[in-house]
């Protein structure tokens, strides 16, 4: 990270400072009231800098970015989803500094945790979108149904479809962040046979979208991405599925606590066996860690308490596109995949039909040729 980048970020924060803040009190005051010291806050900033793969010299800047975070309003839309991502978000690190910051971020509209309701909420959404046109960060949770013109999901007093609302909101957004696998890649709704025609946000709008997949993604990844946008005024470096590299750069397998057992060839052969008791590698009971890019093994969940692999169940690959179809069955290694998902069947069937048709044509042609040839003999 060179001097020029640092300078650019400083300039950006200065520019943001000039904009009017939305919070009732400053971040430092708010943290103080909630029982956190300045030291706790800086510790959090350092951890956040490390997570965003930034050098430690960025720590004071992260703190500053957090302090101006209320200058950029956030609008959070809920589409076809289960609210699991919001759930993950609201229980971020205890004693929830991430969370305090998130609530301090000027959250103009969030269907589940905002104070307003009914018509008032609709008003807030409308007002937020007009007042902060071109400035707000749009976070989307949930897949977007597209079949029947999106009628599988309608919202609000005017029965607007999810697709219409998203298009409207995305047009004037400074940045669009897909939170969770559903909004990133369609998610469970988009699994075969995809009755509602659900799609990821990037597939239905004409704008760069940053994907923060996971079912649910960890709160750190959500807050980290939003802070990055504030800090740099741009989207972070991403991989080929538009996932921020700071979170999705490595495979689950790379930093897994059971990795040593994989290397030593020590596996759990079935749940509850001696291997399971000894915490061996879960590959043979279906762990998809070797194919999944995410930071769960490093950041864990619920205040760094645990994560599925620690509790003895393999990774299901939830931050990968189409994992509902491509990673199933979830309790068997991908290597023994029998191609028995409905989607695979459909593909196999259509190939089969094509091959048979080609064969049929060939047989008919052969017969015709023979018929022509035969009289000559």
């Amino acid at each position, binding site marked *: 990270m060179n001097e020029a980048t640092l300078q650019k970020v400083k300039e950006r924060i200065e520019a943001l400072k000039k904009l009017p803040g939305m919070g009732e009190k400053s971040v430092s005051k708010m943290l103080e009231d909630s029982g956190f010291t300045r030291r706790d806050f800086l510790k959090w900033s350092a951890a956040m800098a490390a997570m965003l793969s930034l050098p430690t010299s960025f720590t004071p800047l992260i703190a500053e970015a957090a302090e101006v975070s209320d200058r950029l309003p956030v609008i959070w839309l809920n589409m076809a989803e289960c609210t699991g*991502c919001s759930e993950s978000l*609201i229980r971020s690190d205890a004693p929830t500094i991430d969370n305090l910051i998130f609530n301090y971020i000027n959250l103009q509209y969030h269907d*589940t*945790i905002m104070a307003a309701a009914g*018509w008032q909420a609709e008003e807030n959404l409308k007002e937020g979108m007009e007042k902060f046109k071109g400035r707000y960060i749009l976070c989307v949770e949930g897949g977007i149904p597209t079949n029947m013109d999106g009628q599988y999901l309608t919202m*609000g007093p005017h029965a607007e479809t999810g697709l219409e609302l998203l298009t409207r909101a995305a047009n004037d957004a400074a940045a669009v962040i897909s939170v969770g696998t559903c909004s990133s890649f369609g998610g*469970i709704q988009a699994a075969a046979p995809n*009755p509602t025609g659900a799609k990821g946000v990037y597939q239905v709008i004409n704008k760069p979208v940053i994907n923060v997949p996971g079912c649910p993604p960890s709160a750190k990844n959500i807050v980290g991405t939003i802070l990055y946008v504030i800090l740099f005024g741009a989207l972070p470096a991403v991989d080929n599925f538009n996932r921020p590299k700071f979170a999705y750069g490595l495979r689950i397998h790379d930093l897994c606590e059971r990795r040593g057992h994989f290397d030593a060839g020590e596996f759990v052969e079935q749940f509850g066996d001696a291997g399971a008791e000894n915490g061996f590698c879960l590959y043979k009971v279906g762990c998809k860690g070797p194919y999944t890019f995410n930071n769960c093994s490093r950041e864990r969940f619920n205040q760094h308490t645990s994560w599925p692999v620690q509790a003895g169940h393999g990774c299901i690959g939830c931050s990968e596109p189409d994992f509902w179809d491509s990673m199933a*069955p979830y309790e068997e290694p991908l290597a023994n995949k029998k191609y028995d998902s*409905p989607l695979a069947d459909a593909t196999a069937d259509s190939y089969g039909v094509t091959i048979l048709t080609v064969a049929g044509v060939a047989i008919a042609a052969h017969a015709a040729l023979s018929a022509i040839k035969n009289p000559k003999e």
Partner: protein
Amino acid sequence: MKINKKIINKIEGEATLKIEGDKKIDFVQIEFWQYHGIEEYLKNKNYMDALVINPRVCGICGHSHLHATVKVIEKVFKAKISKKAQIFREVTSLLEIVENHIKWFYITIYPTQIKDKEYLFKAVKFSSKISKAIAILAGQFPHNSYMVPGGVTCDPTYMEIMRLKDLIKEIKEEYIKEIMDENLTSHDLERFFENLPKDIGKSLNKFLVLGESNIFKSNGDYKNVKEERNKSLSKNALYNNEYYEVGPLARMIINKNKNIKKIYDIYSDSIYTRMCARIYEPLLLLDYIEQKLSEVDLCEPSFLKPNVRNGKAIVAVEAPRGSLIHEISIKNEKIDYYNIVVPTQFNLASSTKENPSPAQAALMNEDIAYVDSVFRCFDICAVCMSH
């Protein structure tokens, strides 16, 4: 007649109420306009996949869906599980109920009367601790898959059980201090009713508990439950062709809880009794969890391999919002048929004026100003409803 349209959001999705009547509610229709189709994805998938897919019905009570799924598969396989696995499952499922009630109180219903962000933080403080307790056994919350047919995948040490017990004790002490004590005194609940009458929202006064559990008695057979389409994208659930209320109030009344009975005798099944029952329930559950954790024998196996069989089964469990029913048919290791009936389908069915559902009955003849509070006292979950 004038029909008022009201959108109820912040219920993990939204519902549309079509209200007939100007000042007093004459009749109300409840509509949900979302559709997921979870049951469709399950067809032809490996039976184990249901364990990962079903929790995604709902991110709030996904653990109950996991519990129901694993139980229904075990019923088909006639599987046995160890007492240790049984206790762990019970503990994490009940913790989910405790967490749900706290979030419902402070995030869903509280803002209809009191606009103060502090209460949101209070809910978050509790729910973070509770999910941490669940994560010790289950790996993460929401959306884990640590229950498998035959037991659980985790194998905790004494150290982890100690941490868990400690955390539960802390949660319980804080609950008693900050939310409600054993004598049902709750400062926050009284504050909620400062400007709201306690005797509104009386419903059908018919209660149903279907779940098989060690802590709640049931009073019905889930085989008598029938689903029926209504005008929107949701389905109504009826028991013997009648509507019943499910949930914490039903659990308290059917189990003859003395404390709630006292309040019930004064206010009948009003909004106040319903809210009291829901806020009081975590105290009973936390006691039970503490007792169960002291019975854990860590030397028992976590998992006993079941034999895969073909067949059909149906089970009910008690979820945060009431009785949750899962039904499965397995053929050659694949799911042939799956059906889910969620508690919200009982409470928030949309029926006729002559034969109203619990929520409709509670709203009818009430002042239109109270509609938000009364509707939410049933703890609605729109994502479950639109599974």
